[in-house]
């Protein structure tokens, strides 16, 4: 079934305690390449049947009103996931075998 992805991130000017804790811990594990980390949310909404423009519009609305808190978060992405998510997951699989 098709899925719509909604990505929500803390606004850049807002403190992100989560990202801060992670960026502090990464170097201790030898991951020294990253100077900053922000942690946000990813939602996958399942749709029964084809994703019409109207449904996408509903997703954008839900993203702006319910899935994000506009006072502290930005919706940074609303898009339809490739049907089986294959090409996206390829990368991930690579990551997992490491």
């Amino acid at each position, binding site marked *: 079934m098709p899925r719509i992805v909604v990505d929500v991130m803390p606004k850049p*000017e*807002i*403190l*992100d*305690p989560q990202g*801060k804790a992670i960026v*502090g811990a990464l170097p201790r594990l030898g991951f020294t390449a990253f100077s900053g980390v922000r942690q946000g949310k990813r939602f996958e909404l399942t749709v029964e049947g084809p994703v019409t423009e109207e449904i996408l519009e509903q997703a954008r609305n839900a993203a702006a009103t319910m899935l994000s*808190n506009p*006072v*502290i978060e930005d919706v940074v992405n609303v898009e339809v996931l490739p049907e089986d998510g294959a090409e996206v997951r390829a990368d991930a699989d690579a990551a997992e075998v490491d």
Partner: protein
Amino acid sequence: MTAGNTNAVTARKFNIDTVEHAAQTPETELPWAELGLKENEFEEIVKLLGRRPTAAELAMYSVMWSEHCSYKSSKVHLRQFGEKLTDEMKKDMMVGIGENAGVTDLGDGWAVTFKVESHNHPSFVEPYQGAATGIGGIVRDIISMGARPVAVMDPLRFGAIDHPDTARLVHGIVSGIGGYGNSLGLPNIGGEVVFDSVYQANPLVNALAVGVLRHEDLRLANASGVGNKVVLFGARTGGDGIGGASVLASESFDDSKPSKRPAVQVGDPFAEKVLIECCLELFKHSLVEGIQDLGAAGISCATSELASNGDGGMQVELTDVLLRDPTLTPGEILMSESQERMMAVVTPENVAAFEKVMDKWDVEYSWLGEVTDTGRLVITWDGETIVDVDPRTVAHEGPVYHRPFHRPEWLDGVQADTFRASEAGKGLPATGEELKAAVLELMASPNMCDKSWVTRQYDHYVGGNTALASPDDAGVVRVDEETGMGVGLSTDANGRYAYLDPYTGAQLALAESYRNVATSGAVPMAVTDCLNFGSPEDPEVMWQFAEAVRGLADACQVLGIPVTGGNVSLYNQTGTTPIHPTPVVGVLGRFDDVARRTPSGWQRNADGQAIYLLGT
């Protein structure tokens, strides 16, 4: 972890308004009105300085002379808490009103500090974070006295339970209080949940914290000892609390694109928990001379209060402040309210030991300057002087208003609308069935019903010293594990009574809290209060305020216990409609041994015990 001038590059991005420049350009237009200053206040600043303020000085004065920081409308009334102190009331008071929190002697070398504060407006805008940072702020006040925080309480007031916006506020605020308090390891030992439509667009989120200390650990917010170092530690400074757009844009080099400033603050309870432990380690090894938490007015408040309470002056280099947002202007850095920060004064001999404690807890810090003998607070930006003031004029000698007040005319009407003896008995339940229905209706009302749907979201066991918490009338925590000595606390308020008669209403709140503490088995010792009122510019509200303070001060005298600290929250209103005057009163009492605490209500296995009704 890095000290030193990491922001030097950014120092060049601004048109720095130096003291010298200000002296040469008296005609420069300054945004004092946008910063909330009144014309007479701005003129007073010019008079004090003998020139126009620099942008940075203007920023400092505007935040420090705000109602919130200067108590300019309430000061003349609050004085009664000091003036009406008797010797009996002073007996155990180690620190009274004026410091971050009052301190009461418990004996055996132990002392206790407690205070209640409001975070009403931020909690309406963003309930979770507003309430969370309310807990964070009051806990830092307690730490800054040299104490280990041991418990929190949260008196809350919401609008009508069936209003569409109430759920957002209740759930957000309760989980914010829990989210922050639970993460600090502070048991929540009590509070209130009240629903009344007068609080619809102005919920009251008051937070109380209590801490304990050994007498020798007591710290005050002052900077003394010429040559002692000034250090800022904890979270980095961001644009928090400055407001959506900077009115100090003139400071910015490229003012065509002012960068965004946070609309609300996000709390980091983990950072605060680490800060607590780190401060306690500093106290244990006597590594700080003076310490101050950063709350509203941030560095402006910390530097001016430390310097003003000390015996000399202070010199601070602002480019050494570690920033979360490198685009902040000097004025904004001075005004920033970023959470989870502390400022301390450290002797040069202790610098290395201080840094070791910071490193152990992974807390960032930066050395900003030192204590001087000039009597001035001098702040530089990359070596250039941008602030040169007498710190007392910023911190303590701000404007004082004798606002006009008068008894509202409508009050007679409200008071006349009483229960009439002629109607006695009308509509009263007559049968057992009716009585049962009435009891059930009362029990189900939102203000009377079981509050465990709130309190079970709070950890009341952490620490292992909680002897009573919800649903009891007072919370009780053990202070000394050897002897069982401890304290009991309760907070109470009734806005409806205070609306009918603020003088008596405030006294009733105190009496209820006092009773709750006394019936738990403690000897009441001290009072803290959070005075939630409407606009002081409304003479009728001002009258309510004046009456409530007078009532509280008089009643304290009768009961023989002092107000040791508290907080005033004004401008709680929607349009021109103020909330009911709501003085929230917290009473603290002492137990020789918390084993003797008395729970409310009868316990299980109480078969055969007698029930008495005492009093009138």
